[in-house]
């Protein structure tokens, strides 16, 4: 199998690193070589955060090369837009949380928040799926499970069994949130098929 490349992006504090850890664990669980890369430190403080996850028979570079990304999973709209040039031309998929987080620079009038993000994404990606993760999470019983719902949508495009996702999620989330997380995952997986 050719190496598969997934970008998970969002705003510091949204749980990008946990989501990419779950994805990597699932890849390992399914017997793949996997590399997951992001930078900690300054970037965590409300700034733009991106994680690269690559899996396959043998993975070398931890970083995804521009033009080779299979799926972008973004927890915020502008953070999907930021990485579109990484997508495989004509083949890439974007799954994006229906959420806009306005940076202070925009409120101060020093920058503008991009308009028509969905249109731009659609011009570049073969498929764009916008999903309100927070709404699903609330339905699942815990608004903090939005990321798991989005992972559910992502799971439709990856060669992993549902059981392996469930197994890893159970291991990785707080015991008292397992039920809500599994519910959110399944709902996200369901909606993502539409």
């Amino acid at each position: 199998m050719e190496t598969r490349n997934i970008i998970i992006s969002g705003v510091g504090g949204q749980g990008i690193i946990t989501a990419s850890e779950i994805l990597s664990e699932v890849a390992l669980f399914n017997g793949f070589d996997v590399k997951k890369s992001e930078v900690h430190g300054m970037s965590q403080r409300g700034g733009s955060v991106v994680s690269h996850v690559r899996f396959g028979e043998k993975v070398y570079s931890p970083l995804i090369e521009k033009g080779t990304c299979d799926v972008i999973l973004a927890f915020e709209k502008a953070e999907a837009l930021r990485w579109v040039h990484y997508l495989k031309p004509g083949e890439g998929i974007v799954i994006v949380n229906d959420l806009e987080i306005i940076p202070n620079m925009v409120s101060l009038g020093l920058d503008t928040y991009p308009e028509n993000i969905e249109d731009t994404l659609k011009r570049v990606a073969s498929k764009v799926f916008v999903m309100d993760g927070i709404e699903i999470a609330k339905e699942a019983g815990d608004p903090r499970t939005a990321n798991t719902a989005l992972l559910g949508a992502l799971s439709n495009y990856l060669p992993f069994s549902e059981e392996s996702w469930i197994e890893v999620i159970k291991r990785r989330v707080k015991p008292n949130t397992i039920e809500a997380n599994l519910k959110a995952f399944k709902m996200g997986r369901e909606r993502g098929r539409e």
Partner: protein
Amino acid sequence: MGKKVILSGNEAAARGAWEAGVKIATAYPGTPSTEILENAAKYEEIDAQWSPNEKVAFEVALGAAIAGARSMVSMKHVGLNVAADPFFSSSYTGVNAGFVIISCDDPGMHSSQNEQDNRRYAKFAKVPVIEPSDSQEAHDFIKKAFEISEKFDTPVLFRITTRLSHTKTVVEIGERIEVPLKDYKKTPEKYIILPAHARKRHVVVEERIKALRAYASKCELNRMEINNTSLGIVTSGISYQYAKEVFPNASFLKLGLSWPFPEELFKEFYEKVDKVIVIEENEPFLEEEIKFLGYADVEGKKYIPLCGELNPEIVRKGVLGKELPHPEEAKSVKRPPALCPGCPHTGIFYNLWRLKLNVTGDIGCYTLGALPPYNAMDTTICMGASIPNAFGFEKARGKDFAKKTVAVIGDSTFLHTGIPGLMDTVYNKGISTVIILDNRITAMTGHQDHPGTGKTAKGEPTVEIDMAEVVKALGVKKVYKVDPHKLRETRNVIREAVASEEPAVIISERPCALLPEERKQHAKRPKRKVDPEKCKGEKCLGCIKLGCPAISMKEGKAYISPLLCVGCDLCIQVCPFGAIS
């Protein structure tokens, strides 16, 4: 076969060190190195500690190695500048039991002030360098590093880079092997580097380098991968992965023990391939070694940029002159890091901006005070520089200028290297004002304890340094304490302190908003709300100028995100129209 797990380079290095029988691990936190000590501290068999700075950490670990225990010290690349003095001496003294220095360099400067390549430091100090290229190698090579250290009686520099530190890859782990304490024998001619001893030790060091150079060509950390022989690539560390990605069929000379340079092995490789290039991040370190041997046709920096972090497209473009086809980059919004909602620094920088003071800054989350909306920082040089910088301002421009200047420094940074600076100001009759931003933790690097927190790296209770008493003991008479979330009160104290004719220290006391105890407080407080009727919107922007990430403009009015708000009352204090409750 051992168990397979996913570990970051830092976690893998800590695991490998534990398996190698390490007994003592020391560090001062610094991105990207911090998780090494954090993980080492989880092992019962390792006596792991945070030191107040890298020099102290180095000296404790070296002392432990001389006394017979396998020891390691970890730090970020610029930490080795702080520890450079014992580093150079340790090369002369040698080590007794294995002693490994982990330096986490930061190509691309994700979280650092420079891009120094510490392989140069190792060569300068005449210490061998080991460079892993993924987590498995970080785990395996560190064991070898302890063996080499003991075999050649030398400190070993173990160089990791950010991308390796923070990338998780699959690692097959093993079990710990206990290594008994080595005998300790008083050996003054070795461990007391009086000139008469050091002269003899220098000869020993040069002999050691010769022996290591010969060893490097035979060592299993260095290997040839002969595939297609039209292109041969010399590389080390993470650069190997990028090169391998772009040139899967080329031949490689992959160096794990990269200095002393393996001359014989290189000659052999050179004969086997048609053309040799060097792919390495930052400095042309290997390239210079090769050119020095007389191979003028071997190029590296001709293709690969010296500045910045590498990635596959830079390698592809540099060597092949082209990129893979990819969509055009879209313009997104700027999203620099920001101070967190409820951050104690927010109040201080809001006030410093309002008071229009000159601010000499330091290293920590509060360096973000340099960014909009505050733009409230004039200098940031290195750990501990804020206080001496402010005194330098005073020396150059006089007392009136000093009365418009403050130094800001965090609690952990003050204990790291801030104290001598304050001592200097007092001793040399300065009048500068210092604000110690005491948030009760080393915050920037993700909450590590320090001598002011009352807890050790192992989570045990210990003596808690009293900041105010330390400051008083240095001879400062004017010592104030403020809660930075009381904006007006804090502003008045700053005004009084800078106006005084003697050195003053303001201790700004409020714990980091991300500490677990603080988070519990957030949950108890109501989320703040804006009354759109009273809000004057874009004409005012008073609350926006706090820089709180929870507050933004929505349809012309201020809006507070209930997901992000922690219920502090800074925005209530700054709203001139009483629109926030």
